[in-house]
Every structure is written in C-alpha cells, then in structure tokens.
C-alpha cells in the first residue's frame, strides 16, 4: 500500500486558478489510484505549509525555493503541455512514494 501523500495546490490569491487545478489534480490522482490530501492555498502560504506536505503544485511563478518538489501547472489552464505537466506530477508522486 502506497502512502497517502499531501499536496499543496497554490495560486496567487488561492481563489481562481487553484480551484481549477485542484479539480484537475484530483481527477489525475483518481485515474491513477493515488491517494492524496489536496490542500488549496495562496502561494504566499507555501513556505510555512511545506513542512506538512510532500509536494507543491502551483499556477504562479515560484517566489522562492522550497524543500519539497514544486511543479508549475499552467498547462491545466492554457491546455498547452498538459500531458507534460501530468507526467511530471505522476513522476514526482512515484519518487515520493518510493523514498
């Protein structure tokens, strides 16, 4: 049984684009039988919340370096490079679960 992972989903205001990305990531995890807690945040909160999380998925530029893997997921909004974003997220999950 793979461990349940904690994922921060961030955008600038924590209100619009992260709402859309939350749903996309939820669907992606469901399709791949990945158990995860998704937490929607403002990117400004990421630094203080990263200790309780395994990875960060964001629609904004990342204002700082994080200790956890951070993925930019703009592709979910524009439709450009969606497959690449999904692959990157799934790869990161695998790495976290095998660590």
């Amino acid at each position, binding site marked *: 049984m793979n461990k349940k992972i904690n994922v921060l989903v961030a955008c600038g205001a924590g209100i619009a684009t992260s709402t859309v990305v939350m749903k996309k990531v939820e669907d992606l995890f469901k399709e791949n039988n990945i158990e995860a807690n998704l937490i929607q945040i403002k990117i400004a909160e990421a630094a203080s919340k990263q200790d309780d999380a395994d990875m960060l998925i964001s629609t904004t530029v990342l204002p700082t370096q994080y200790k956890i893997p951070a993925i930019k997921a703009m592709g979910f909004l524009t439709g*450009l490079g969606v497959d690449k974003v999904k692959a990157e997220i799934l790869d990161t999950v695998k790495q976290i679960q095998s660590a």
Partner: protein
Amino acid sequence: MSDNTTLKVSDYLREPLILLNTNFNSTDELFNGVNDIAFAEGFVTDQFLPKIKAREATFPTGLQLEDRGVAIPHTDADTINKEFVAVVVNQQPISFKRMDDPDSTTPVKVAFVLGLNQPHAQLEMLQSLMGIIQDSSILDKLEAATDQKDIQQILN
C-alpha cells in the same frame, strides 16, 4: 456546496461590465476603466482597485496561448460585493505579464476580470471559462463582437 446548480460563465456576466472596443493602453488603464463602473454600480469595495493592481504586479494573470494572450485578473474575495465576470475586448492588444513568467509579457485583446467571492462554489464556471480560453474560435468571435448581446450569446 454540491447542491448548487451549475452556473455558466454567462450567468456571471453583468451588462455594464461588458466593455467592447475599449482603448486602454495599459493594464492600469484597464483596471481603472473596469473599476469606474464596478465601484459605481456597487460590485466592488474601494479596496478593489488598489488590490487588483498590486496583485497583478506581484502575481500577473496573462496566459500565453498558442496564437495570442488572454488575461484573467482577479483579487481578494473581500473586495467583491456582488459577483461578476467582466469581459473587456480592447481594440489593440495590451501587454500583460505572464502568470508563469512575470519577466515576459503576452499580447491581450480579451481580458476576463473575475469578481469572485466564493471560489469553491464556482468550479464549473471556472472550468468552462478555461474551456473558452482554450478554444481559439471562441476567442476570435469575442474579439469580433460588436455588442453586449453577442458576448452573452457566445459565452452561453
């Protein structure tokens, strides 16, 4: 939350906040223009304008698509009294900084200014908005629209 009826983008359109053939030269001019109407009509508080400008400067909302840019400026929920999606179709493209790379800009003729205060209830609307943004034939129609009814029909 789940028993909310599904709302479309067109349900968030407010006639005074559909701005066509505007002549804004910058994001600040666009925000001033939207705020003039939104504030006068009671959609936003007096904090909306300073906050949306600051937010756009820090976390820009330009989305680079294949053949053009689109922007979805928005700011904190507590500045919104009545929810709306304002549509601005400018005559010339305005340079918006890119969400994924604030050092680059993207040319935006169509901007959707989101006045949202309950984001979780609006997933369907936001998803359909992203669908609109990803459909260049819809964006072509929006750019060519001549009156507010066109916009309402295209987004319905």
